[in-house]
């Protein structure tokens, strides 16, 4: 019965690394495993397979409040044919069909404002990371009721 949180993004692209900040803000808790990644690859489908809950935390270029969405079941929509990284829905779909993943999958979006080269988050991303961490606490550290 475990929870896996995967943070995705490149911290050399400022707010693209917002997800990593969210992980730092979360207290470690037994049964919750976290991992920071530059991008998602097929092998993550095997990693998440044993989890009951998996959350993908990622920066979002769309403005707005941070939010957590449940990933719908079913096949993910078609995608760019040249990409080398996978999207959360694709990792989950692979995990379901190849590695018997039966848990719940969520995406936590952390909107950013500045994706230029460099380090450090913008104020927007930083605030959103704090809020996102709170949302994740509500989701993960209270009994599943939603």
């Amino acid at each position, binding site marked *: 019965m475990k929870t896996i949180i995967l943070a995705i993004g490149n*911290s*050399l692209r400022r707010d693209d690394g917002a997800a990593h*900040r969210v992980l*730092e803000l979360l207290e470690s808790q037994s049964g919750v495993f976290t991992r920071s990644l530059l991008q998602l690859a097929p092998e993550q489908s095997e990693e998440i397979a044993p989890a009951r809950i998996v959350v993908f935390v990622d920066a979002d270029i769309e403005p707005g409040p941070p939010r957590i969405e449940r990933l719908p079941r079913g096949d993910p929509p078609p995608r760019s044919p040249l990409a080398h990284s996978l999207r959360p829905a694709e990792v989950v779909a692979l995990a379901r069909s190849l590695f018997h993943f039966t848990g719940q999958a969520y995406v936590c979006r952390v909107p950013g404002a500045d994706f230029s080269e*460099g*380090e*450090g*988050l*913008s*104020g927007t*991303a*930083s605030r959103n*990371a704090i809020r996102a961490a709170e949302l994740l606490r509500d989701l993960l550290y209270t009994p599943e009721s939603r």
Partner: protein
Amino acid sequence: MSVRTLEIDGKAVTGVAGQSIFSVAWDNGIHIPRLCHVGGVSDVGACRLCMVEVEGQRKLVAACMTPVEEGMVIRTNTEQLLAHRRLIVELLFAERNHICAVCVVNGACELQDLAASLGIDHVRLRYRFPTLSVDTSHERFGLDHNRCVLCSRCIRVCDEVEGAHTWDFSGRGVNSLLISDLGEAWGESESCTSCGKCVQVCPTGALFAKGKMVSEMRKDRRFLKYIVTAREKHEWVR
């Protein structure tokens, strides 16, 4: 040696006359943040990170420069002090081009540690992106002005311990720049003995051993104590 009894963060502690608040706190496991202080050379009180509150005193005092007094009541980590420290570190990050991800001391940098321990997740100030050079003219060492925080540790260790006084500052204010001799390239310096002490005491990756890559360099923080102890007590112990 007369003893002074005082209170730091609610803890009763003792120090000897002449000892700094910083040092007494450190002896008692209270680690006040600092950047310009390094044990073994004189203090200058330049970074202002170790500012603490002393009850009954109107102004904050720099712990490294203030001797303990009998009955002092000191607080080292109030909200206000933490806010000040955070802003000071933010000022440093915005002042020059610190990109940890490509820095030789990434993971072993005092500035980075400070940011982490103070919970700095972003810089509210505008980055200045100054155009600064790297001096790799020295055979063994390099100086990257982009990462220099102007703490003057190198200047002091070179002057006081090695006795060469190769380093100093030129310019003033935000245009201050660490220079060797009279502004010659480090490799051309006649006074530099290539002892490397400056490199070891540098809190960031500004002074580095050449040939190191990202995250590869680790600085020897204990050598200075070794030298000073050897000098003062004639004991050669690590």
